[in-house]
């Protein structure tokens, strides 16, 4: 019991202190020029790889029609992939009778943690990354994932089992949280210019390979040919369609 209290007090202290410290931290522009300065030693430009593309996420507004098209595409994909991924269970326990029995029901499932806390969040993260690749903001990508996941739970997965409370919540929520982590890691890997890192970046975030990914920018060096010292120092980005 005493250790329980100690942990609570420690965490309370950490949260209060860290948020206070972060709130009081001056913005970069407010740092005084006098006083001790930290020196960094960046690599000379010539020692860095020069990637051809720069990967990022470009957000845009979507029309209702675009939302519907995206939902329809993912829903169709779910009908294609789910029966193929569960042939044994569908053959033994699935079918139209089971569909009719499960349709409209919502239960707490008793699946193993491997499914609920690993497989579902992973699939949710890829759903989130698909929508992010198409230019949805983080919260919009989450909301689109939520709809896709709910449609899947209520109308596709009922082939084998009733819709589950855990899956309805955890697939989009844990999936989006995991998706943010994957998004940041994959951008870091993709922007290194290293072929191995880039392959890994695409592997953990395959949506960056899709034609609708809007954040792949072609880097074009620009110069005005007047000040030779700036040659190679200016980079501009242009979207490659």
């Amino acid at each position, binding site marked *: 019991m005493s250790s*329980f209290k100690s*942990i*609570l007090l420690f*965490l*309370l202290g950490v*949260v*209060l202190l*860290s*948020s206070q410290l972060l*709130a009081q931290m001056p913005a970069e522009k407010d740092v005084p020029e006098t006083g001790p300065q930290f020196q960094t030693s960046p690599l000379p430009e010539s020692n860095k790889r020069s990637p051809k593309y720069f990967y990022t996420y470009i957000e845009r507004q979507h029309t209702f029609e675009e939302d519907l098209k995206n939902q329809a595409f993912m829903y169709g994909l779910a009908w294609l992939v789910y029966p193929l991924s569960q042939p044994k*269970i569908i053959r033994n326990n699935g079918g139209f009778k089971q569909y009719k029995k499960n349709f409209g029901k919502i239960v*707490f*499932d*008793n*699946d*193993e*943690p*491997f499914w*609920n*806390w690993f497989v579902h969040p992973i699939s949710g993260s890829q759903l989130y990354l698909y929508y992010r690749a198409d230019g949805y903001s*983080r*919260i919009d990508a*989450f*909301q689109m994932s*939520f709809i896709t996941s709910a449609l899947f739970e209520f109308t596709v997965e009922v082939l084998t089992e009733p819709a589950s*409370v*855990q899956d309805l*919540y*955890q697939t989009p*929520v*844990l999936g*989006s*949280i995991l998706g*943010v982590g994957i998004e940041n890691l994959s951008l870091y890997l993709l922007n290194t210019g290293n072929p191995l890192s880039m392959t890994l970046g695409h592997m953990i975030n395959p949506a960056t390979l899709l034609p609708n990914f809007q954040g792949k920018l072609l880097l074009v060096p620009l110069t005005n040919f007047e000040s030779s010292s700036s040659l190679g120092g200016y980079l501009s980005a242009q979207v490659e369609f």
Partner: protein
Amino acid sequence: MKKILSITLFFFLALTNEVKAFEEKAFISAGFGFSYASIRTKYIEQRENGELEDETKTFALGVSTRFAYRKTTREYGIASDVGFGRMKDVTVKNSETTFVQGNGHYRVITINPYVKQNLPFTIGTHWSPYFGGGPAWSLQTLTISELTRGNSTIDNKKRISFQNIGASLAIGLEEVLEYKEMHPTYIELGYSFMANDQVSIIDASDANEAKLISSRKAKEFYGSFFFVRVGMVLF
């Protein structure tokens, strides 16, 4: 009396600071959750110092997430906690006549739709107190790993799950920041009361497909849960 009121008012005003939080935005937050459960049943007993008890206590640690929409000072959302812990000397009625006693692992998932209201002042520069609550559903799953009494039909491949329904209340402190991208943090203390709705025994020997061995409606089980949630707005 007037003096006390004046001093209280002075401190209240000194602590009060009007800071506007982000409004009319949906967001996701995540953090850690800790829960301390005191579970009482008519048929779970605990042997301690040779005395029979009808209560078992457990402590679970896990992840807490929420998806919410903040209107102005009011927030509507769904919170969920996933926790893992251990239960000691828990006794479960296996059938009408047999009991199983042992030590086991415990995991819990809670889904809690809620409404939250911020109080109209802040403490310090930007900490806003709030209160909230709503209905709650939970699924507690117990795996008896060390059987100390009873028949061996319950082994570590079997899961005993308790589906509960109840309500929860919480009070907390959160940062009021103008943009959610500034990742406001929060700390929350709460209490849930849960009553059992259904008890099931699951065969989990096949990891791909959990098989339901038996399930029945049960009203013998109820528990009090105290929880702490610490987290921040992610996006």
